[in-house]
Each structure stands twice: as structure tokens, then as C-alpha cells.
């Protein structure tokens, strides 16, 4: 059985983790490499780095972080934030990322997704869909960390991006992000009904039960940041909840 993926997301700025995990064992809570290694040991099925405030000048720092992480962490690594060109994708993959996540640049230039997928395969291309509900059953795509509306219908956009070559969609509810009130399940179900590619649910996790809800709404991957960072519960707790609900997980016993 294909296991649900539990995915911690690390916000990275200038090569440092912005919100750090409070594990006592960590020597340097700001080091993304050490954080990723810890999450991997804790049973993470994949790790996502989000380069926040990515600028042209500090990209090299991120490539270095990715390269050092890939040397030590043998699970899939996705990197998003500031991915604007096929060359950006190439450099991330060569540094050791498995997938590059494209958001704002896909809106500005939808063809970028197709060109990147043709160059590296769909499996390496994630499109991040940041959506905000505008009316019942309707969501709008936002960019720039949720600050800029685009007027684009999120459901149609998800369909278009899957057709353009995205191998996976990272669906973030901007309404739920940071609220700890759970994923936007209607949004997940609506996108699941329209696309065949796997969906990663993001935005709103506050309890382990939210992972179960997200999985039942059709998500293949379940992403969270702050609940893990602040040690509110651990990856093993999320997996235990999924397993208790009869959903398949990769058990912690296989990690070490």
C-alpha cells in the first residue's frame, strides 16, 4: 500500500531556519541541514525547504544548504520559493533537490512549468497553488506569499498546471494557513476531483486529527510547519493518528 506522506516544511532565510524546532538534542536550531536530518530521523517521509525572501543575491546560500542536506538526508527533498526559471530548477536539482516547487513564476509565465517538465520530467516539478476562498465552492489563486490576488480561479488553475506538466500540486489554503483550524477540505476535494496528479495538502494543521481529515479528502501528502517546529506534536504522533484511522503509513521502525 502506498503510504500517506507526512512532510515537515522548513522556512529558510539567508541559509537559516526562521522558525526552529525546539529539540534539546540540537546543537544549532537555526541550521536547516541539522533540522532536516532530525526530521528524517523522526520519520519524515519527505522534507520541504521554503526559501522565504529569496533574492538573486542569496540564492547561492540556498544551493549550498540543499547540497549539504542531500549529502546526509536520504529521503526526497523539495525546494520552493523564488524558483523563476528553468535554470533555477536545474541548479536546485544539481545541488541535490528532488523536486522544485514553482508558484509565482508559474502565474507570471505558465509555459515555465511545461519547459521545466520537459527538461527534467514531471516528477521533479511541483506547482504550489496558494488559494483563498472567494465564495462557496470558489477559490482564487494568490501569489507572493498570499499577498497578491490574481483573479485566477484556483480549480481551473490546478487543472491547467497538471496538464502543463506539474507532477504534483502543493495546495495551500491561505485562509487556513496559521489558524490551526485544519486543512480546507472542500478545496482539497474540489481539486482532487479535477486532477490525477498527487496533491499535497498545506495550511491549517493544528491537531493530529487534521492529518486524517486531509488524507480522507484525497491528499497524498500532508504538510505542516509550526506544529512540528514548536514541538506541539511529533511526526510519529501524526503517523500514529493516520494508522489508527486505518490509513497506510511508513512506520518509524524502518527509519533508522
Amino acid at each position, binding site marked *: 500500500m502506498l503510504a500517506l506522506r507526512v512532510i515537515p516544511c522548513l522556512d529558510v532565510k539567508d541559509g537559516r531556519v526562521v522558525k526552529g524546532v525546539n529539540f534539546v538534542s540540537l546543537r544549532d536550531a537555526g541550521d536547516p541541514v541539522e533540522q532536516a536530518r532530525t526530521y528524517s530521523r523522526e520519520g519524515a517521509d519527505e522534507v520541504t525547504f521554503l526559501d522565504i525572501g529569496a533574492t538573486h543575491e542569496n540564492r547561492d546560500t540556498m544551493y549550498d544548504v540543499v547540497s549539504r542536506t542531500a549529502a546526509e538526508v*536520504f*529521503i526526497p527533498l523539495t525546494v520552493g520559493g523564488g524558483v523563476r526559471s528553468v535554470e533555477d530548477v536545474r541548479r536546485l536539482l544539481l545541488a541535490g533537490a528532488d523536486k522544485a516547487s514553482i508558484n509565482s513564476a508559474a502565474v507570471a509565465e505558465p509555459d515555465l512549468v511545461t519547459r521545466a517538465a520537459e527538461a*527534467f520530467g514531471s516528477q521533479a516539478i511541483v506547482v504550489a497553488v496558494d488559494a483563498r476562498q472567494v465564495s462557496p465552492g470558489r477559490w482564487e489563486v494568490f501569489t507572493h506569499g498570499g499577498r497578491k490576488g490574481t483573479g485566477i480561479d484556483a480549480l481551473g488553475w490546478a487543472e491547467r498546471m497538471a496538464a502543463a506538466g506539474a507532477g504534483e500540486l502543493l495546495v495551500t489554503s491561505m485562509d487556513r494557513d496559521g489558524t490551526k483550524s485544519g486543512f480546507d477540505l472542500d478545496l482539497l476535494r474540489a481539486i482532487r476531483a479535477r486532477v490525477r496528479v498527487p496533491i499535497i495538502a498545506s495550511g491549517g494543521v493544528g491537531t493530529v486529527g487534521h492529518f486524517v481529515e486531509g488524507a480522507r479528502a484525497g491528499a497524498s501528502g500532508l504538510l505542516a510547519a509550526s506544529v512540528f517546529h514548536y514541538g506541539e506534536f511529533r511526526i510519529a504522533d501524526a503517523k500514529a493518528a493516520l494508522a489508527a484511522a486505518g490509513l497506510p503509513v511508513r512506520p518509524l521502525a524502518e527509519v533508522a
Partner: protein
Amino acid sequence: MSAPMRIAVVDPGSGNLASVLRALDRAAADAGIPIAAAVTRDAAEAAAADRLILPGQGAFAACMRGLAALPGMVETLEQRVAAGTPLLGICVGMQIMAERGLEHGVTPGLGWIQGEMAPMTPRDPDGAPLPLPQMGWNTLEFPAGGHPLLAGIRPGEHAYFVHSYALSGYRPDQVLATTEYGGPVVAIVGRGNVAGTQFHVEKSAAVGLRILANFLRWTP
């Protein structure tokens, strides 16, 4: 001290091979086997290696094209395989070991393993289509029983898959492991001194590192 085992990671031009090298180095260190692993596009380097790794990403046709564009590489691999050099294909590198691929038209493969890479059409027990690509950690089962590459791995342990095509028309005795995604899916193939994993060993954590270590110890 004996000379390190030379491992050639053949680059068909699809990119990220750093992860394969890093995982090999880690597996070798864990196993206490000195290795010298390098990515190569040079047939002479591949010919001189003690063991060969054939990775691959993207499409079947592009991977075959990339390999064929390296002067003498396909012939060298065929010679080394015939001479008994152990070879491990990974993901699309495993796929091109089949007779042909059906992605973007029909493309002849290396023909070391019987069957063709056909599009998957997985459905859940209710008949609803499952997501494609299959992306994530799935369980391994070993229909044929033990094999040196599987030493220390228990049925039901997980490996990391990313694919939309799967081997069909295969010979059961060339299938070392399967997984389940709307029906059985070939996960590891093997014939003599060649083997291939549909999943990414280099991204499959402890299970993947163990398979790599087993490959380094393998004396087919």
C-alpha cells in the same frame, strides 16, 4: 590495503546524480567497503569499473537517446554485462533495461529484461482512478523469495517510488520484488548480474542504503 572498488555511475544526461553518489558513499562507509565512485559519460571509464550504476530520470525515450549519444557506451555496457560485471539500474535506468518503452511512442530498450514499460492505469477497489504518477513510499513484497540484493530487508518495508509507467509482459523469474498500486507493480527486476529498482534507492532511507550496500557485496 586493497584498492577501492571502482563504481561508474553512468550519466545518460538527465541531471541529478549527486544524490546517487552520496548514497553510494554512505552505503559503502556503513558496510566498510572502500569505494571510488564517479559519474561518467565516458565509455572507457565505464569499461574499467568494477561495478556499474545506471540511473535515469524523465522519459524512457530521452534516457535511451542520452545513453546512445555517448560514444560506445551502449556497446560497452553490453560487453561488461556479458562479462559478468554487476550492474544496477535505478528508476528510468531500470526501465530502459526492458525490451521497449511505450512513453512518447515505441522506443527500443536495452532488452536485458523481458517485457515493456507500459502506462499504469491504477484504480482503487471501488474502481476510482488512483493518482498518477505513483509518488511516495510503498511496500515491497518478494514473490520469488530471497536474493542477495534483498538481504536484511523484510517484506512490507517501504521504498520511495515516482513513476507512471510499469513493466508488463515480464517473466516472473526476473521479478525480485513487487509493490501494490491498484494491483501488483514490478519494483525490482534481476537477471544474472544485472538488477534494477523501479524505486529510487538513493531516496529510500535505510532500505535504499541497505540495497546499495548489498549491491556492493553482490557476487553474482
